[in-house]
């Protein structure tokens, strides 16, 4: 039986920021299909890991493979690979001088030769999928935080990428908007057959939709397994993170202290 290559594979990866190792000895394999939650406290290196997956940050050591291909060094090849990766950024990154529909149409207009009429219909379909078809002509400044996040989600899905990466998708959202976003992520992942990686510190909202969980703390992966196993873990590091205890093996303000030292 032939197995499809993993959606993401990291082998003995080290990631540096400002000459300091943020993550070391990272071995990670994200299988195709399903939702993987990458959890960890603020400053643990989750966003650094995300930057490595999208090729924004080169690994100082080890190899990073995405969709069965080692991340290319050449800019053109990297841009080509990125067409297969949809990224929902924490700050949404919606272009403020374009309408909602123009934002969603942007990747389609740039990377396809589809006629304008077809692109318009595709845009409306994507907006319909996130429940915002009626907001097509609004500008990003006219949207609430939750709506803007959903528009950014529709734009990230515009090219039907097989891999979706979500960077802190719940930051700044109220509980209802958070629930809407998480159920959208789960529904779209199942209906479109995607592989999703959610990088977040919102444990309790994310674990119910995740098939797999990875916990990063103190510069390494401290847990990898199912959400159920995570909840049952007796590891003091994991327990401290899950229960939000101030004292324990994870140092509060670890990054600030390391930089001050």
């Amino acid at each position, binding site marked *: 039986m032939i197995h499809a290559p993993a959606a993401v594979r990291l082998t003995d990866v080290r990631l540096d920021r400002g000459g300091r190792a943020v993550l070391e000895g990272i071995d990670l394999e994200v299988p195709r299909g399903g939702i993987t939650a990458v959890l960890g406290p603020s400053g643990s290196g989750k966003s650094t890991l995300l930057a490595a997956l999208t090729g924004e940050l080169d690994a100082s050591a080890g190899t990073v493979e995405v969709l069965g291909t080692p991340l290319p060094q050449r800019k053109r090849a990297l841009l080509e690979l990125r067409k297969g990766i949809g*990224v929902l950024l924490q700050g949404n990154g919606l272009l*403020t001088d374009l309408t909602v529909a123009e934002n969603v149409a942007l990747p389609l207009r740039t990377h396809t030769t589809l006629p304008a009429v077809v692109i318009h219909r595709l845009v409306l379909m994507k907006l319909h999928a996130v429940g915002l078809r009626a907001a097509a002509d609004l500008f990003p400044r006219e949207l609430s935080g939750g709506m803007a996040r959903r528009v950014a989600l529709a734009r990230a899905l515009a090219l039907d990428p097989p891999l979706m990466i979500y960077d802190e998708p719940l930051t700044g959202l109220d509980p209802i908007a958070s629930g809407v976003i998480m159920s959208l992520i789960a529904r779209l992942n199942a209906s479109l057959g995607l592989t999703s990686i959610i990088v977040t510190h919102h444990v309790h909202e994310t674990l119910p939709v995740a098939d797999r969980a990875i916990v990063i703390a103190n510069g390494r992966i401290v847990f990898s397994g199912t959400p159920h196993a995570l909840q049952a873990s007796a590891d003091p590091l994991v327990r401290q993170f899950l229960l939000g205890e101030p004292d324990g093996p994870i140092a509060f303000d670890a990054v600030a202290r390391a930089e001050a030292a």
Partner: protein
Amino acid sequence: MTFVAATRSLGRAGLFSLSVLRASAPTRDFFTELTREIYKIGARSLPIIAVGGAFVGLVLTLQGYRTLSRFGATNSLSTLLGLSLYRELGPVLTALLFIGRAGSSIAAELGLMRATDQITALGLMAIDPVKKAVAPRFWAAVITVPLLTAFFCSFAIAASYLEAVHVIGLDAGYFWSALKDSVDFVDDYLVAFLKSAVFGGTAALVAAYVGYHAEPTIEGTSIATTRAVVNASLLVLMFNFVLSALLFRS
């Protein structure tokens, strides 16, 4: 700033300029963006160009008349006006007004795009941010600053005509014929156009460079905006000397 850091910064700016030129493929999207930018940074700059031009024309007329009247040469007032406007004041003052109005907005817009993840998002969508956000602004400046210079000079001459003929009482025929005889279409008018295009491109590149590389914070954007205005203004004044020395040797 050390010499090494300054050299490195200059090298980066040079590479950035090359990347802007490389990213200037004439696609449909590019022309759409270019049109939008010409309206934003060109058409919206017209009011200050008009007002600025008119007052420069008025003050040149006032001072020129006072000085020339001592030598009985007031009929040469429009000669003084035309040559000083087309050769130096028009291109330079238009560029400085453009930097204050549009250069600062280019730096602020790109700085805010950086701070609000828009530039990162473009890169992650496999869209070259320089091609999408910088190249249209650069070419819009190259196209609009010469046109704005023409408007600046026209408003200055019109204001000067009103003052010289209808307030001071000079002869309208002398005013226009001296102007026509002294200003050469190629040596003065087209050279002013060329200088303006260089100044517009310089202003846009400097503003885009500092805005694009701004710290992704509100303070970073503010610093970039100030730096764009100061650096671009100084470069325009320096380039004006170099271009004048090269173009007006006769």
